[in-house]
């Protein structure tokens, strides 16, 4: 956290807290859903927890990017975003071309969803960065 400035730290603490509360809420909700045998949506309980974690991490990363609290001051935003874009596309390529039948197994989310979600997670980073940059450019024009 040392390389983030005070405003970035504040944003990370704030949205980290929201993410933690969301994680607890979703795990509780999933627990109550799991009490009914017909409401299990993942192939295994571990997979359900993993997907909930993916959702919370997705929220935290994207909200941090939106509030300029993901990249450090000296990070190469463009280079890192490009790397995430390529990783995301590769991950989605693996998911849909090599193991598409593993995403849904017997009407439940299967292990292929891990690759799908990680691909979406990586892809969301350059997309949110791009959107934020466009908003910043518009705001800069207004400010000057």
């Amino acid at each position, binding site marked *: 956290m040392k390389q983030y*400035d005070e*405003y*970035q730290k504040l944003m990370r603490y704030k949205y980290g807290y929201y993410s933690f509360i969301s994680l607890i809420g979703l795990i509780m909700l999933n627990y109550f859903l799991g009490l009914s045998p017909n409401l299990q949506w993942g192939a295994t309980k571990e997979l359900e927890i993993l997907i909930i974690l993916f959702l919370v991490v997705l929220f935290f990363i994207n909200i941090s990017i939106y509030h300029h609290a993901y990249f450090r*001051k000296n990070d190469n935003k463009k280079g890192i975003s490009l790397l995430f874009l390529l990783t995301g596309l590769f991950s989605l390529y693996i998911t849909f071309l090599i193991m598409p039948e593993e995403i849904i197994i017997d009407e439940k989310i299967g292990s292929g969803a891990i690759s799908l979600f990680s691909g979406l997670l990586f892809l969301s980073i350059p997309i949110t960065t791009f959107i934020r940059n466009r908003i910043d450019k518009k*705001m800069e024009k207004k*400010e000057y």
Partner: protein
Amino acid sequence: MAKNLRLKAARAKKDLSQQQLADAVNVTRQTISAIERGDYNPTINLCIEICREFNLTLNDLFWEERK
């Protein structure tokens, strides 16, 4: 929170961009932007850093009179 127009004016007077001021006080440009917009209340340490950059006092840049 009210906009910090005094900071913006001081920056304009010294012909500094938000990025240049941010680099001088070692924060991101968005932090300076948030302070000027009144979206973020900086810590006293950052206020002092900014004041030193402009050779001004805390009163000059950050003190708000009661209305």
